[in-house]
């Protein structure tokens, strides 16, 4: 049952991801991205990470993709053919990388290197998913968390400085 769900979700994710770059209408691309976000969230739910699933939809589908659509509509792009001219170059790069990946996988199979066993995190049955994430975020991973916040703050200030250049020129 769980495998069935996984293959459905993974299949749709792969399909819609391809459609995002293959479709010519940017609005349709955005819609396939929306479907993909929902299926990624579904994948999180099957992994019992409900909090991450909800945040995935709130942040990506609810905010980022809406802004993306906003820009598409503002520029009124009905068809976007510019990037489809890159097809030969993209094929060349894609085939090269695919060959490398296949070669690497074959090599690993030959060398008989030990296959990494997945680390199974200790289950947290007593407290919920959200509480567990909060605990870990503010104890074990507090330094990376704060660094990420700082980087985001710098990005926010940078965006304001770039967008509001006229404001600073008047003062200076």
């Amino acid at each position, binding site marked *: 049952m769980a495998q069935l769900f996984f293959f459905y979700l993974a299949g749709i994710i792969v399909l819609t991801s391809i459609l995002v770059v293959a479709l010519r209408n940017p*609005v349709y691309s955005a819609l396939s991205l929306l479907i993909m976000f929902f299926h990624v969230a579904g994948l999180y739910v099957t992994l019992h990470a409900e909090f991450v699933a*909800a945040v995935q*939809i709130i942040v990506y*589908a*609810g905010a980022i993709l*809406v802004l993306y*659509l906003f820009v598409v*509509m*503002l520029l009124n792009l009905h068809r976007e053919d510019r990037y489809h001219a890159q097809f030969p170059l993209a094929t060349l790069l894609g085939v090269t990388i695919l060959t490398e990946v296949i070669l690497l996988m074959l090599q690993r199979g030959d060398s008989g290197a030990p296959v990494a066993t997945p680390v199974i995190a200790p289950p947290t049955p007593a407290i919920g998913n959200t509480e567990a994430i909060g605990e870990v975020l503010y104890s074990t991973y507090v330094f990376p968390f704060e660094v990420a916040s700082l980087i985001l703050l710098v990005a926010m200030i940078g965006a304001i400085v770039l967008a509001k250049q006229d404001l600073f020129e008047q003062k200076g």
Partner: protein
Amino acid sequence: MAELALRMAFSLAQITVVMGVIMLTIMVLTLAERKVLGWMQDRMGPMEVGPYGILQPVADGLKLFFKEDIVPAGANRFLFSLAPILALVAALIGFAVVPFGPDTTIELFGIQFKPFIISDINIGILYILAFTSIGAYGVILGGWASNSKYSLLGGLRSAAQVISYELNVGLAIVGVLLLAGSLSLVKITQAQAGWFWNWYVFAPPFPQLLAFVVYVISAVAETNRVPFDLPEAESELVAGFFTEYSGMRFAFFFIAEYANMILVSCIAAALFLGGWNAPYPGTALARMGFVQFAWVENVVWFAAKVYFFLFLFFWLRATLPRLRYDQLMRFGWKVMLPIALGNILVTAIAAYLFPR
């Protein structure tokens, strides 16, 4: 397998009942809005259909159902059809986690069911926030696919407005979540049992009054209602994003707007006003000895709180003029957001110093 089938049958029955009640409420609301507006403006409101016009929603529904379905020339047919469906689904799906009554369990054929909530998931409020944000797609896509200037402008306005005010809704709720220590609407409501000063609007250690005000204002903005109905400002944009819609597709947008109103009212009642809890401990019916009917009183209290908010929507509509677009944005980002953030800071400190 039989258990799964039984659970699904029970869930389906619950969904049917909830959808029925929501649709009935929407019908009542369309009439109530016109009546309330009429009385506030010293008019009678609709009087022709049925006694005192009480059959007006039926007449409206029939009219919309039989209207010709027009797709404008040059419109994107697929997205034009998809947009109203997206808007309606996003508005209705949130009711799955709303607790309409007490958290009792009944046993049917040896399986436990919760009769007053379709699904009690532990991230209930996040689930609602996630799906209300999807509602913006219906509006934006509807505006874009109509191939009309007015629709496009309405859709663009709506996108900016929904993103801005969604943030405030999310941040206003955080104070309550800090005090309750849970994301489940059932647990949050249970934490507010007892006298009415345990409701999170008044609750010690730090009353969420500011958060409540921010939430209500942002909720009005998020549902595109007066005084924040910029996306459908009739004096500048004809009707905004649904200018080109007619018949049942228009009705879908209309129903979605009212369903959203009911949903945000349900959340406000559950988070800030104690949900199904009466203002006094327990229920009056349980004290008089009718313990098995106590749920009736709880459901009535919940409905009363929800209807209070719905009345507030009409009241605002009759009272306030529309904001200008730049005023709306400035108010959202420079007034509401700092208040909501400050509230989180103070509530966090208060919850740390005075743990309950």
